[in-house]
């Protein structure tokens, strides 16, 4: 019974195995990016970027229909353009990056929906907005795995300046010029992972598998490495449980994954060891030193 409910779908159906492999790849790469987005107070920037990739994906759709390669390429180009333009405008004018991004992403979202509506139906629009991880083929899965690998490699390269820039940006500027390039590379990784998540979860929910697990990790550890590990595990558990939930209840897979992540987040807010509500209400006896 438990085997049939929790493991059976993956042994029986290839599309479920592909979906599981995809969410694990998304978790491995996206969750660490989400932790940095949260710690750099850029969570909403990630959300804005998710909207920014829409016109590129829409142009891909306009040219090739629901071809994931064309939509991915379009999404990457649009996302990079918006990330770099917003970053350059923010750094050269003093305008806050979130304000700069808000302008670009609103324009992008309007443009994207307009482009999709020129050629597609409402169902196409739903697919673009919410994705469909269960419809993923082998080639798309390879693209997702490739993007995840590239993300982890680039993150390893920029990890040190990214950490120092997050905690003490002035110090980094006095010892190195790596801060600016690291920030831009980080924005590029955000785009790559949004496009990656876009295949599975759609433009509106892609950022969820990055930010919600990061939020979960924040309530369980004060150590960066531990936070990244917890976020990856929370994302993978959300992905697996969401797929099972979707399979058993016919709830769409993307929203099911994000809903499970939301449950983990709520549990963490309540019972987390670092700043959780219950811990604050019942802190236990104070220590001697």
């Amino acid at each position, binding site marked *: 019974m438990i085997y049939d409910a929790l493991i059976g779908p993956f042994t029986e159906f290839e599309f479920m195995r592909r979906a599981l492999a995809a969410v694990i790849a998304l978790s491995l790469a996206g969750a660490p990016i989400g932790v940095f987005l949260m*710690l750099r107070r850029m969570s909403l920037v990630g959300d804005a970027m998710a909207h920014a990739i829409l016109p590129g994906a829409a142009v891909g759709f306009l040219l090739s229909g629901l071809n994931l390669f064309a939509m991915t390429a379009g999404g990457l180009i649009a996302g990079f353009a918006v990330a770099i333009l917003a970053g350059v405008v923010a750094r050269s004018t003093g305008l806050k990056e979130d304000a700069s991004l808000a302008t670009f992403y609103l324009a992008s979202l309007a443009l994207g929906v307009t482009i999709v509506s020129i050629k597609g139906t409402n169902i196409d629009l739903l697919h673009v907005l919410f994705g469909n991880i269960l419809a993923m083929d082998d080639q798309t899965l390879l693209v997702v795995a490739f993007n995840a690998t590239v993300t982890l490699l680039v993150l390893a390269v920029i990890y040190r300046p990214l950490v*120092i820039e*997050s*905690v003490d940006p*002035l*110090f980094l500027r*006095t010892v190195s010029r790596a801060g600016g390039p690291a920030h831009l590379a980080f924005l590029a990784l955000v785009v790559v992972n949004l496009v990656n998540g876009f295949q599975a979860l759609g433009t509106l929910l892609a950022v969820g598998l990055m930010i919600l697990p990061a939020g979960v990790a924040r309530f369980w*550890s004060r*150590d*960066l490495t531990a936070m990244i590990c917890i976020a990856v595990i929370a994302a993978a558990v959300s992905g697996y449980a969401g797929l099972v939930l979707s399979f058993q209840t016919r709830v769409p897979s993307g929203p099911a994954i994000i809903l499970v992540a939301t449950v983990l987040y709520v549990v963490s807010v309540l019972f987390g060891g670092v700043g959780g509500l219950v811990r604050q209400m019942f802190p236990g006896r104070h220590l001697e030193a």
Partner: protein
Amino acid sequence: MAQLAFRNVTLGYDRHPAVHHLNGEVASGALVAVIGPNGAGKSTLLRGIVGILKPLDGSIHLGGLDSRDIAYLPQSAEIDRSFPISVFDFVGTGLWRDAGLFGGIGKVARVKILRAIASVGLNGFENRSIGTLSGGQMQRVLFARVLLQNARVIVLDEPFNAIDSKTTADLLALVKQWHGEGRTVLAALHDMEMVRTHFTETLILARGPVAWGPTAEVLTPENLMVAMRMCEAFDDSAAACAADDAHSQAA
């Protein structure tokens, strides 16, 4: 020999000068206090020296040093203390010049970091997150990082703000140790008594130089009164600086 030389330096933001037309030299091994009221341009000048801010006009010469070889202690308000990083890792960033992007933190480096932390009296704090430290402890951490940088020139932006007298005395002893080792130290300060007692040279700023020289000669009530009368606000309708025109014509 001059370690730092300012040639008609103007530093500022959005074309408005925060430090206007500064000329002068800091000798190698000098111990200089930079004083002035809030908004006088002290932090701006220090940021110009370490290369965070490019001069609007003029130039700063570093005596053959790269600005990245200068140790800089920022105001602690500039640091995001909510970021989950331990005291050990934070102090360890002071080894950037040796470790760079990919260099490992080996046994020797670990010992250096632990020694620096011990030197500022924070034994046992290595694994504490910086977010759990008091203001004085955080200031000690920043000094430990400067120690680790082992730089010829050390620039301290209000290093003794909002800390108790014991911590101030301990950290001031480090500053005097650096001076004794022949390093050049510049510190933005507010405590006139400390400046008078411990700093041999003083620059009084009020969005421009008011006086610069031996502390005993510079720290007079007249000079301090001039500095106090400084106008803090930028004038959005100000004309282009005539002194700059005259200077460029002369050049």
